[in-house]
């Protein structure tokens, strides 16, 4: 909306001035970037929990499931943005294609993490839980999953931070997120470099990744009070 300050300097350090000049636009992109990074991990975890449990419960499921989810992760994100609309019956520019693509990646990362997390529960623990009367379902939710929490949250941290960077790619198809700042900077860099929007995009992405990462660590501490009790 404003033009005065942004026309003055191309120094990378001018990113703060650029931010102040384009605040409402930038904050809108930051908000979109945030929910686009978080929502797919939440949905992805909900899908990955039963799949991971399956891979743990029936050992023969593990190798093929890990291969398939691993393959999903190798699909270039930008190709997904071409493939998803026809497959899911969405319009070419439907914003839903971004969370769908990221959910696929999150599932790919989290299935292995859930399976390995459950595998980290020792047989002695399971036998003890069974001995004191836990049925399989109760044992899963009250003994195995809580013990697997540290492994699963470690995976969540990776998935969240990966999403923050992949979301930016959706900027290339015009989707509203911090990726737009990179397009902006690139476009205005043709005769000579113009860094402020690019640096601002990097700074905001890194800050967002840090905040999300710290939130998951906090969540981990909250869900595993016994670990603190042991240490102190």
């Amino acid at each position, binding site marked *: *909306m*404003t*033009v005065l300050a*942004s*026309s003055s300097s*191309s120094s990378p350090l001018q990113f703060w001035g650029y931010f102040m*000049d*384009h605040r409402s636009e930038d904050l809108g992109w930051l908000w979109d970037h945030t929910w686009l990074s978080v929502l797919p991990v939440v949905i992805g975890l909900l899908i990955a929990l039963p799949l991971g449990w399956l891979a743990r419960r029936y050992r023969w499921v593990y190798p093929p499931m890990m291969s398939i989810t691993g393959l999903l992760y190798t699909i*270039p994100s*930008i*190709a997904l*943005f*071409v*493939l998803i609309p026809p497959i899911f019956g969405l*319009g*070419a*520019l*439907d914003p839903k294609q971004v969370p769908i693509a990221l959910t696929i990646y999150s599932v790919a990362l989290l299935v292995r993490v859930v399976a390995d997390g459950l595998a980290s529960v020792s047989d002695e623990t399971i036998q003890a839980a069974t001995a004191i009367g836990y049925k399989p379902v109760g044992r899963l939710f009250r003994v195995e999953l809580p013990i697997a929490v540290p492994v699963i949250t470690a995976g969540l941290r990776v998935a969240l931070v990966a999403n923050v960077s992949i979301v930016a790619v959706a*900027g*290339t*198809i*015009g989707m509203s997120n911090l990726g*737009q700042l990179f*397009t*902006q900077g690139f*476009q*205005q*860099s*043709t*005769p*000579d470099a*113009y860094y402020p929007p690019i640096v601002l995009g990097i700074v905001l992405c890194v800050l967002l990744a840090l905040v999300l990462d710290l939130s998951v660590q906090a969540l981990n501490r909250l869900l595993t009070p016994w670990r603190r009790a042991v240490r102190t």
Partner: protein
Amino acid sequence: MKRTTFIAGAIAATAALTLTACGSDSSKSGTGSASSSGAGSTATIASKLIMGGPPEFKTRPDGLPGLQKNYGVTFGKYTVTDTGGPVTVSSLKNGQIDAADLFTTDPAIKSNGFVILEDPKSNFAAQNILPIINKSKATDGVKKILNGISAKLTTSGLSDLLTKVQVDKQDADAVAKQWLSDNGLATTGSDASGVKLTIGSANFPENVILAQIYAEALKAQGASIKTTLNIGSREKYYQGLKEGSLDLFAEYTGTILQFIDKTAKATSPDDVYAALQKALPPNLIALDKSSAQDSDAIVVTKATADKYSLKTIADLAKTG
């Protein structure tokens, strides 16, 4: 024209689509003929020059094959640079190439004193800028506003706007507003009140400025506007236009015609415009075309133009 920019910019975005699109091109790519015929006792000027441009210029019908067919011009060598971007400009400036494929609105042409060689045989199809709009949104009021903009848009005027965004680093929406008020188009009113439009743009500055000009003018006349800017591929946004998730887009007559109809042969502004009106799907219409064109052009430095006294592309085929 700028279609290739999107492919380069979002090369993987359109991987699936461009692969199929390029497949047909590469199968008939005979580039060898380009360099073989120029040599001989009567060497042409072109045979002493190195031409630079985007990769597909070697095989595109209006690229090297078209220059050979229309003007008998065959360059000594072809070097791949980029699609009318910084690499091409700096290569031309520092003499790594002698002639370049650039876009006519590029501010770098003026600022470096480059010379555009005239194209009397219309090797490059006309690329008049015009609004493509969803029929259901094209009320008389909306048409009046957009045609009013097209009436004032000129190639050099557009080049000035690009300079403001790319060189002076101003915001596209501010530049758009300024242009509207400079041209007496910033009047507020109710010509478009009640109309809801989603305006899209491709991911290069000129197209963003055009989308902002449409947006600001329609907003001032009471329309409610949403913008989806910087869409990285024509495959994506053209689909959006056809589906109705986008209502309005600034397009280039020659490029959009080629995109819809690969066999289109028209080159003059009026022929291309007429062919485009026929080729568009029933839910899209082309409003008035502006005189502003952003087309490919063969560009040389002032020194080269003086040395060989070049004015048109045909001059390159002379012996010198």
